[in-house]
């Protein structure tokens, strides 16, 4: 085994070792903190959340870039497990970055471990000593690695997923399974948050609230790869409004179906459209009384078109900027500490819609 501590720059200390063990990495983390304290007694690693990321080693850089973009919602300690199929032994890097702000210093800890595929089924034995005890632990495996996530089920309380998948049904089923033992934060769900907020706001004025019982059709326009956020959006409406969603059938490029509401069926249409951003591109909700509201991506926000009973249309822009994928991931990290009770019922309805 070979190990070394070097000061990479004034604000970051790095430890690395080849053919190492979790115990040695744990000791190195303590050593890094002690070294920091010697330099400045004010280094105070207040901690809230562990993030364990499992990636294909080949695409590690891409994921690291995404993690750099999460902004203010960063985890306290990140443990990145890079999977190299043929690897038999562990190599590791540990670093403590310190941001000097005023007289207190903010410490962020990061551990990278190169693991082999054969480590994945027992990844908990490698990761457990590396996370800060008693903190919430969030697991994210952007390249799949279901076996590794399952190995961490006992240890982690929260899993970050993205149901943006070629096989939506399988993706949503997998989430249903994870929900049995963990709290799930779904990036696809978070992509629909601004849309849910806007639809909620559109029906919030008392004069419009009554129309919620009167909805006759919901059309969701989505990027081709984003059936899941579209289904989750409709699932959310269905669960909040007491509808019973039915299965969707393919008609051309669209997925169409119905949901049963008290006042009759609600026509559901999911249509792929050409938009650059992952997630939804637009939403239209129509009522039996002939009114409708449409929201579509536009310059500087969402374009809202509200049609009255008499056919008169009014167009507005709801101001807002895209959060970007970095912002979505940051929101996912933050959501790990919250509990959204509306996701599970929405998922149940969405799963019914996409089940074959």
């Amino acid at each position, binding site marked *: 085994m070979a190990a070394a501590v070097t000061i990479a720059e004034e604000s970051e200390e790095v430890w690395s070792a080849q053919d190492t063990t979790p115990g040695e990495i744990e000791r190195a983390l303590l050593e890094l903190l002690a070294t920091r304290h010697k330099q400045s007694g004010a280094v105070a690693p207040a901690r809230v959340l562990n993030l364990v990321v499992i990636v294909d080693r080949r695409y590690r850089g891409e994921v690291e870039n995404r993690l750099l973009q999460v902004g203010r919602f960063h985890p306290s300690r990140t443990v990145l497990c890079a999977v190299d199929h043929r690897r038999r032994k562990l190599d590791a890097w540990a670093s403590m970055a310190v941001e000097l702000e005023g007289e207190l210093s903010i410490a962020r800890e990061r551990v990278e471990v190169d693991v082999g595929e054969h480590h994945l089924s027992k990844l908990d034995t490698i990761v457990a000593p590396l996370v800060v005890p008693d903190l919430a632990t969030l697991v994210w495996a952007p390249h799949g690695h279901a076996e590794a996530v399952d190995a961490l089920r006992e240890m982690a309380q929260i899993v970050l997923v993205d149901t943006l998948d070629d096989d939506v049904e399988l993706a949503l089923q997998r989430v249903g399974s994870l929900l049995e033992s963990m709290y799930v934060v779904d990036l696809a769900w978070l992509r629909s948050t601004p849309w849910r907020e806007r639809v909620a*706001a559109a029906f919030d004025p008392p004069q419009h609230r009554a129309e919620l019982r009167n909805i006759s059709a919901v059309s969701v326009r989505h990027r081709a790869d984003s059936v899941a956020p579209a289904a989750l959006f409709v699932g959310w409406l269905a669960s909040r409004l007491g509808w019973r969603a039915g299965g969707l059938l393919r008609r051309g490029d669209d997925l169409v179906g119905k949901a049963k509401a008290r006042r009759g069926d609600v026509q559901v249409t999911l249509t792929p459209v050409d938009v650059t951003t992952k997630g939804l591109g637009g939403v239209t909700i129509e009522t039996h009384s002939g009114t409708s509201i449409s929201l579509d991506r536009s310059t500087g926000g969402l374009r809202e078109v509200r049609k009255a009973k008499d056919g008169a249309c009014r167009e507005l822009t709801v101001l807002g900027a895209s959060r970007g994928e970095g912002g979505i991931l940051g929101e996912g990290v933050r959501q790990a500490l919250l509990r959204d009770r509306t996701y599970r019922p929405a998922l149940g309805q969405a799963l019914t819609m996409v089940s074959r």
Partner: protein
Amino acid sequence: MSPESAQALAQQDNPLTEGLERLPVPPTALVIFGATGDLAKRKLLPALYNLAHEGALPERFALIGISRSASSDDEFRDIARESITSFSRRPPDKDVLEALLGRMRYLGFSFDDADGYPQLAEALEAADEEAGQPLNRCYYLSTAPEFFGLIPQRLEAARLHRHEKVDVRLIVEKPFGTDLESARHLQSTISKAFRESQIYRIDHYLGKETVQNMLAFRFANYMFEPVWNRNFIDHVQITAAEEIGIGTRAGYYERAGALRDLVQNHMLQLLTLLCMEPPVSFEADKVRDEKVKVLQAITPFSEAQVSERTARAQYTNGVVAGEDVPGYAQEDGVPDDSRTETYAALRLEVTNWRWAGVPICLRTGKRLARKLTEIAVQLKPVPHMAFREEGSVGVVPNQLVITLQPDEGVSLKLGAKIPGSKMLIRPVTMEFHYGTSFLSQSPEAYERLIIDAMRGEATLFTRNDEVDAQWSIIDPILAAWGRGEATKGEYEAGSQGPKEADGLLGPGRRWRRL
């Protein structure tokens, strides 16, 4: 759907808002009086941009800026663009910024000019027309304080203070009065036009994350409650120190002084949050009821007590951050014979069951050694010093410090054994820093306060009886100081403050070092 069932559903909660963090904000026209002033440029317009960026503004939103200077809409938009670009906490997105600017209109008239208000009425009607429905009105008084009474009168005269279909709110910046009498007069003037439920008095400290965190700290952690009383707490120090001078605010500061500028509002608000009983719920009036009880439990000083329990001083020339700086009397715009205090300290007592006998000491000043806002709660010493030994610092009382500026966090000073064969004790500090977790770039206080006012959520605004109680505490001090009854001391710029303040805490106690 029958009209009855439609009405019933309209009265129910909106089922779509469950689980959403950002609740709908009613369609609103925000009218900023003083729209080209310093506060608007540095805080309000950037805050509005950030709200727009995050999609937090309502889809129907109009901003009408009013100032005395004659400018066009486009000139005002240029001012807004520049201030947002300069002071926003995030780089503006060009499309969102331009779309927001497109919602802005400008009216140039003097606030006392009754002829200007019909123009405002027209602009509001035009905004309603454009939105296709009447918009709530929020009038934000970001003006010099002398207009706080006048503008509501003019709004009433123009029948803009009420609307049969929408809510009309008045947001009033600080200071709310300059003493008890003027505050009551101002309240009386405003309340002729606006009901209390329409009035949102801003104390921007209440919009800060850390100030709100004080409520979480106290009421979400059971471990502190047993010691949070006179049996365990020796005294409390609340500090709001600044290293900067008065800058270009001589005109305002010369009239206000440190006591009015920070103690009457921000520092007494911090005191109430520290000392209040747990509210039944976090509804606006439930919280404010408890805060008022604290203020009412502070007995205003007699004339003799002002001399014993307060200190005031003015800074002289000195050195700050290695640079020579002038004294207050030498600052631009300050008269040579100014008696205005740039430092104020007082020892208050909350005479209720929980706090009786606990000195609660407040100090604030300009040109002190450093910028620092904190609350330090010092617990009583242990009853028996079993560990006192030569060669150690010894056991010092526990101290809990809640820091608001420049870093937001909480630290707890504990006694710990020094490694070695002897039982030697020294204090160590356990620190929690909010920035290390999730709040390294907190939203500006004004973002939260503006959106709360638009939503009619009043918890973080000061109610009239709070203002009244605050001035009731401050008024006797102002009166006595006005009569020259407390010694006016001096302190060197860049120092810890005047020596006159040292004795306020009582025997065996000293101010924490800045």
